[in-house]
């Protein structure tokens, strides 16, 4: 339950932050959520990772559908990822997820007592 809450909260708050703050606000949000909704470090990492993977992946997927893959294919080719929309959506999701995961890990360690 905690995992689900942390994941969804990370995604939701990151989305809101992204409307006003630079892209790296996802790190701050994930850190804060992990610090508040306390979980074991690996679980916190996973919650941050999954939260942003879903958010960035989902947004990119949605935008890409509406755009008929026009731009994603061009940018994927430019970034040497083949002419593949799916690849660049996955890369996008993974990049966001990775940053959020590690930030969440830090947040979790902030709250962990050294004995546990």
């Amino acid at each position, binding site marked *: 339950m905690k995992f689900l809450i942390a994941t969804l909260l990370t995604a939701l708050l990151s*989305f809101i932050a*992204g*409307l006003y703050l*630079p*892209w*790296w606000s996802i*790190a701050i949000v994930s*850190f804060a959520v992990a610090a508040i909704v306390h979980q074991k*470090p690996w679980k916190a990492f996973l919650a941050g990772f999954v939260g942003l993977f879903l*958010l*960035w992946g989902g*947004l*990119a997927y949605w*935008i*890409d559908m*509406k*755009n*008929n893959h*026009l*731009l*994603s*294919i*061009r*940018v994927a*080719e*430019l*970034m040497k990822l083949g002419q593949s929309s799916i690849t660049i959506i996955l*890369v*996008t999701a993974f*990049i*966001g997820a*990775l*940053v959020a995961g*590690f*930030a969440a*890990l*830090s947040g979790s*360690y*902030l*709250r*962990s*007592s*050294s004995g546990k």
Partner: protein
Amino acid sequence: MRVVPFVISTVVTAGLVFALNKPWGETLPMPAGKFLSPQQGFWQNAEPADQSFDAELNFKNLKGKAEVIFDDRLVPHVFAENDEDLYFIQGYLHAKFRLFQMDLQTKAAAGRASEIAGSRAINFDRGQRRLGMVYAAENALHEMEADPIVLKTVTAYTNGINAYIKTLTTATVPLEYKLLNIQPEVWSNLRSALLLKMMAKMLSSETEHDLANTNSKNIFNTDVFKMIYPEVPDSLVPIIPKGTVFDMPGIVPVKPADADSVYFSKKDTMPARPEVEQDKTNGSNNWVVAGSKTQSGAPILSNDPHLELTLPSIWYEMQLVSPNSNTYGVSLPGSPFVIIGFNDSISWGVTNAQRDVKDYYEIKFKDNTKKEYWFEGEWKKTTLREERIKVKGGADVLDTVAYSVFGPVMFDESFSNGYSQKKNLAVRWVAHDPSNEVIALYKLNRAKNYDEYAEAIKSFSCPGQNFVFASHSGDIAIWQQGKFPARWDMQGQYVMPGYDSSYLWQGFIPQSENPHIKNPVQGFLQSGNQRPVDSTYPYFIPGSYITARGITIYNKLSGMSGITPQDMMKLQFDYFNTLAEDARGIFLKYVKEDALNAEEKKYSDIFKNWDLLASHDSKGQTIYQGWLDSLEREIWTDEITQINPAAYWPEEQTLVELLKKDSAMKFIDNINTPVKETLFDVVTNSFKKASAFLNAKEADGGIEWFKINKPGIYHVSDASKSKLLPFARTNLHVGGYGNIVNAVKGSHGPSWRMIVHMTTPIEAYGVYPGGQSGNPGSKFYDNFVDQWTEGKYNQLWYMREGDKNDAKVKWRMKFSN
């Protein structure tokens, strides 16, 4: 808190953020995290296929209400209550759909490309500054802002651009800014002036060959020079029909007394780039047929300006309506007005005049400070202009340019085209002179008849253009308009001495004597960048003329009657190779058939049966052009390379004409061999060499013409034509060449094809190889390209007040204050 793991994971997070927020490299300097963020990065530029462009916008600058109606091709039809609002909205729309290209082009014009591209653009920027591009723009701006109408119009236009720029956020900024990791810059009236000078440079700055010609002078005396670089080609069909009587010249420039010794016979070499491959690609066609030759009885005007083709396109199509004007056509993002188009009463189009309006003078400085130079027997002070070039990712570069009585000293010991000659060369260029092209466009957009058209274009100085004209009332006309120096014979063909005032330009050809004609007996007029007049015109007018297209168009139009707009479309897409018709006779007469091997025979047979069309899949065209290029090298290389840097290459048109006249002309012989070559030898040898080239190409994908000509349209910022290929359209199945009416040559070609039939109501067609949106994430980015490739047109919707609720209306933008 678990300190050690906390520190480690925090360092990793910070490191990731830092790495993803840092530019990658020089080619694609976007920070990956920022670029990939779906909320701020490139995804935000992925425009939904069903994007609505409806909007209600309020700006304090507006005086009244206005409405912009978009049709299904995203062409805006702007209805404003006054001119200022009209041009404010034009600026807003240019910025909304084309901001990046405007920003890039004017930065490049000002010699600021290094701010975007980094240190690799420094030399380009120095060249721009040394040519005096900003100086020229400042002079133009001064003149423009002294004219109250222009000041009002251009300022409104600038305000419109800036109103849009202000709305931009990290997420909504155009894709290219994200890719290059730069920010848009505020617009100013100066930047519109810079855009005009960019066009002046594009169209009137490589039309002279003074440096290479000076090298030619070492090898060829004046008589030979005039033979191999002829003023009037034998086959010329001028713009102004032959037999037209010209006025007595209003100014007769005088050759300096010592010209024979210090100008004509003086031998010297200049830092000129060798020009083996002729690249006179900035051509254009326009023509007009009178009602007597059309099916409807109304004139038809056609225009296709040939420019570097880019995505986004240089053109943006629109209709501009205010109480005193209703103009449709293509505009140039960065400049107000319609540049090529029509209104209720008239239509007009332009081709480049190709006239030489730039000369070089050799300057002697007193010392390295460049503060004084020798002129009229004394040391005269220069004006020094300090240029600071900002370089992305590097230190500023400082450059000092000395200004003389002629203009900026472009070349000196610190800047010499990459050659060892350390000449101080000053540039005298018409584009430096104060002028007001903007008012010409303002008036032309509103002209009602021939007189108003002729009056409007008078102030158009540079780049000189052939303004073709048709009116609803049935008049047709053409003016070659520009400010052209009145030269004594051969003045400015070579670098001139910079210490003697008698070598200065002595004046300009009076505007009324510029080549022009109205309602000619033949019932049509054409221009295709050829010399505008025959040899009876009383001035020496050198230039970088192209002869062949004018002949093709003249021949076709002469034989036509009952013309329809569809006939004109066919002519704009015509592939007939006029020069090849002449050259083929020479090739087939002089090739030694028995000396050819089986492979060569195969090519020769294709060539014999070629239909003389430069179609995209033609093999004959490839063989022909390969053969002619090879023959040019065979004949001229030995002469041209007697001097280093090389002399100027004669035109292919000239070679064919010379050979037609004299099959034993002396240049056929290779002066570096003991034997005396004949035309039989060089034609056969050049064919064998061309065949070897063709063989290699055939093994490497084929010799269909488009595989050699490589038609392609690249992103406007991709000068290398290799770094942004996903934003380009390459491998286009279209034919043509620089001397063919459908003048597609590599990434050059017809940048806008327009046909206007002056009926009631006006019937017009047009297409350009691009799309209305500059956003590579929009379906409107390149949606006209296929049509353009196939020679198809859009019917242009000249909207009336009453059409505002027509079913074809797709979106509406409402503007008010």
